């Protein structure tokens, strides 16, 4: 009766598996410690201590990931449900980095807005655990759980400002649409499982060959998962939630979502489509090419007419999702590496821009109108100059990192024969210059006569983040070869299986 399950799982294997997911473990430990500490400490101490714990956890995750990346990276762990390969490590580093930036910015922000500090940091940590699992996923089960973990943490974060109606609206919208998207993904996964009989991605990769293109189960699965993924990366025509959610959510949460969720969702697309379903390329490429083209056009055109910076950056995020999809479509080592590079660079420019805007928040609310930036360059020259750097980088001007990101994406795109998409991307990014330069216009316009609605609070933390992001946004341009090499290493595991 008992004879059925012979479990052979040695201690050595347990240690090795644990080491494979080292960065995830570090963040999880920080999360658990933070939850307990939050309950034990007196109220005044909770916020600062939890913030410190979060930073320590994230920095150690960053260090572990970097160490493992340098000293030979691993492979599948925990029965191939998760992986510690270079691709996972790249994203773990990325998420840990975003986490550090987000924790610093939100710590200052919640104090100025008079909100609780500790819980937001805990939620951020939880979202990062979800994202890391997603990037490290070796199975559709892990993919879905990571997706849900990050989504639920973010639903709550969006509604964090409980007394403000927009924040509530944002959370409700995100919850409903996010749940919808998750359902799509799950249905798609079920169909894929039905067709292949496994959820493990490496098995799917071997069982799905180009002959399986005629299998309706697979095609439906790809379609449904593609729709769900498009929701998550906020690619048109599934982007409708993005501006409302971004606008209502507290600023640091918006900033975090705009870069981290996007990166996580692209990690998921790369894992599932480029790796697991790589042989169905012609099928999902049609879908994604349409989505990419629509995202570039819709995102860039809609961004022009926005009055709120959060909404503008939301639509600009839609457009950037379109550009990044070019790299996904191109695939191959160069394409995937370009996507990784772009996601890494995008963090600094976009998060930096949000961090600048977040310095304007006070007890009265978030100053996220163009007018609130008026004369920023003279009120605070450092922020003014760096905001210009971020905008120029988003617009793709050299020598900033955004330019090189586009160069790599488009090179991969042209090499893979997506020239029409690249030309469209180029033409729509001319449109984008209009609204990015509109920000510059306000930043460099003379100081307003009337008193400004939003002056600076005590913002040492965010300014540090802005400076850091600014330095990276500029320096990663000329030094892009290094990051590209890391990206190329990260791309390798997705191709070796086939």
């Amino acid at each position, binding site marked *: 009766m008992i004879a059925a399950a012979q479990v052979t799982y040695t201690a050595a294997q347990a240690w090795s598996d644990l080491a494979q997911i080292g960065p995830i473990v570090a963040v999880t430990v920080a999360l658990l410690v933070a939850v307990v500490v939050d309950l034990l400490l007196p109220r005044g101490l909770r916020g600062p201590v939890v913030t410190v714990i979060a930073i320590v956890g994230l920095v150690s995750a960053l260090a572990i990931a970097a160490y493992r990346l340098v000293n030979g990276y691993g492979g599948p762990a925990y029965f191939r449900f998760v992986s510690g390969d270079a691709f996972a490590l790249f994203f773990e580093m990325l998420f840990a980095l975003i986490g550090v930036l987000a924790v610093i910015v939100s710590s200052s922000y919640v104090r100025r807005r008079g909100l609780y500090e500790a819980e937001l940091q805990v939620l951020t940590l939880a979202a990062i655990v979800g994202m890391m699992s997603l990037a490290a996923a070796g199975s559709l089960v892990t993919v879905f759980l990571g997706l849900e973990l990050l989504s639920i943490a973010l639903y709550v974060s969006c509604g964090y400002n409980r007394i403000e109606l927009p924040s509530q609206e944002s959370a409700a919208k995100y919850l409903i649409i996010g749940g919808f998207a998750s359902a799509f993904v799950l249905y798609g996964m079920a169909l894929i499982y039905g067709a292949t009989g496994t959820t493990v991605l490496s098995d799917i990769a071997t069982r799905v060959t180009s002959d399986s293109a005629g299998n309706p189960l697979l095609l439906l699965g790809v379609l449904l998962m593609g729709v769900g993924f498009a929701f998550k990366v906020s690619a048109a025509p599934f982007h409708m939630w993005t501006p409302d959610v971004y606008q209502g959510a507290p600023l640091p949460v918006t900033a975090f979502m705009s870069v981290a969720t996007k990166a996580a969702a692209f990690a998921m697309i790369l894992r599932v489509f480029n790796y697991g379903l790589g042989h169905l390329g012609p099928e999902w490429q049609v879908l994604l090419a349409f989505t990419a083209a629509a995202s570039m056009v819709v995102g860039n055109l809609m961004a022009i007419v926005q009055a709120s910076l959060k909404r503008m950056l939301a639509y600009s995020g839609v457009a950037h999702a379109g550009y990044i999809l070019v790299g996904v479509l191109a695939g191959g080592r160069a394409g995937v590496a370009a996507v990784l590079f772009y996601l890494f660079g995008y963090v600094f420019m976009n998060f930096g821009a949000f961090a600048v805007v977040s310095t304007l928040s006070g007890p009265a609310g978030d100053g996220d109108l163009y007018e609130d930036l008026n004369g920023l360059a003279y009120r605070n020259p450092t922020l003014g100059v760096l905001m210009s750097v971020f905008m120029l980088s988003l617009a793709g*001007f050299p020598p900033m990192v955004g330019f090189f990101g586009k160069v790599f994406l488009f090179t991969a795109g042209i090499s893979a024969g997506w020239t029409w998409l690249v030309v469209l991307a*180029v*033409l729509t990014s*001319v449109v984008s210059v209009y609204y990015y330069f509109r920000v510059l216009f306000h930043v460099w316009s003379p100081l307003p006569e009337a008193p400004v609605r939003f002056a600076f609070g005590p913002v040492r933390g965010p300014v540090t983040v802005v400076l850091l992001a600014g330095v990276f946004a500029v320096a990663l341009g000329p030094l892009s070869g290094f990051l*590209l090499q890391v990206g190329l290493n990260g791309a390798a595991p997705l191709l070796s299986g086939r």
Partner: protein
Amino acid sequence: MLSAIWILPALGGLIVCFLPRGAARVGAILVALAELALTLVVAATFDASHHGYQYAEQASWIAQFNVSYHLGVDGLSVWLLVLNALIGALAVLATPAAWPRASAFLGLMLLMESGMAGVFLSVDLLLFYVFWEAMLIPAYFLLWLWGEGERPNYAALKFVLFTLVGSLLMLVGVLGEYVFSSAHTFDLPALAAQPPSPAIQFGLFALFAAAFAVKIPVWPLHSWLPDAYMSAPTPFLLLLAGVMGKTGAYGMLRVLLPLNPHPVNWWDWNWVLPVLAVIGIAWGALLALAQRDLKALVAYSSISHMGFIVLGIFALNAQGQEGALVQMLNHGIIVPALFLIVAWIYARTGSRDRSVLTGLAPAMPVLAGVFLVVTMAALGLPGLNSFVGEFMTLLGAWQLSPWLAVAGCIGLILAPIYMLRLFQGAMYTEVAGPPDHPAEGVVRKDMARGELALIAPLLALMFVLGLYPYLVVHALPALGQGMQVLHW
């Protein structure tokens, strides 16, 4: 050595931005003069008998894509570098000490000069593109934050969007060269050695030509130019009109022709551009005739003159292309001088309207004399510089097609009409009615010594290049590797 040519103004510009007003001006002048000295040393030690890039510097930059940091000078770029440094120095000197936010202005001017120097120096296609885009950022800020007129923001944005449409299309072209050339590199000589098939060249040519044609500008892509020139402040205008337009023509010679020597598929691009150039020559000249505003007149005449350069380039023979290069230098000397004179007249009379300005010569004889020389140079009087270039250009165009050359002559015929009418009207027409009712507060005094010193180098160059064009022409055959398509 060559790295210093772009790093010096870049670093200098960044430092100048943060200096106080007085120190900033002194610092900027020192940097600009040092830059000029540096380029002159390069030009003086340039070996005209040596083929290939000189003072070349090469280092791997983004190894995965074979991008290298590759700089070099050859006969094509050496004198343009000097022109850039010279006009840059004059522009800095022409900025008054009392200029609003002078530190930032001077700093950005130096940054722009640095970007253009980089364009002239790059031997790597991606590096070329980086500098090409980088020079646009300071130009935008200069045009917008210090622009004159009603809507400097509009002019600046129009300028940027026009240029960007072109240059982003060029980005596709740049990447296309990498992908489609079997060399798989961004190095210009290597790319020129292995051009893609004519059908691919046809597409790539269009992408590159779009960027360069906007920058020059070639008709019908010129509509940003009048707006931008009208609202540009004079010191910046010197750089914008004097040098930036030349980067487009330079790009045609350095990149467009060598990499796409045979762009033929549905039609032959090499025939399209000279026709557009000739239309531009006539169009610019006719519109210049119709202008009342002095600055607008010079702006449109500039379109006409740039047409000659493009015509020369696409004559695809030695005379035409040598003429084009000479004409690039000439135009870079004459147009800044014209804009300086217009600015001075405006400062003295408060007007740029051709119908209001009359009989200025008696009050300001020296200015009248200087204006006369510049006018003569602009309309191509033999003995002054422009004659040489236009003559060579038309000679080249004649070999391509006599019809084009004849049509191009329309520009030569119209130029004396609008230029002489301008000069005569403003300087020598008798004042009707009671003598001289200057408006309140208008100062009618002659040129100051500083102003004369500012324009003197330009005047001298007009004579030198007019009488001894060999000075620049002798360097031309010393072309870099992969430039064999220019039969110099």
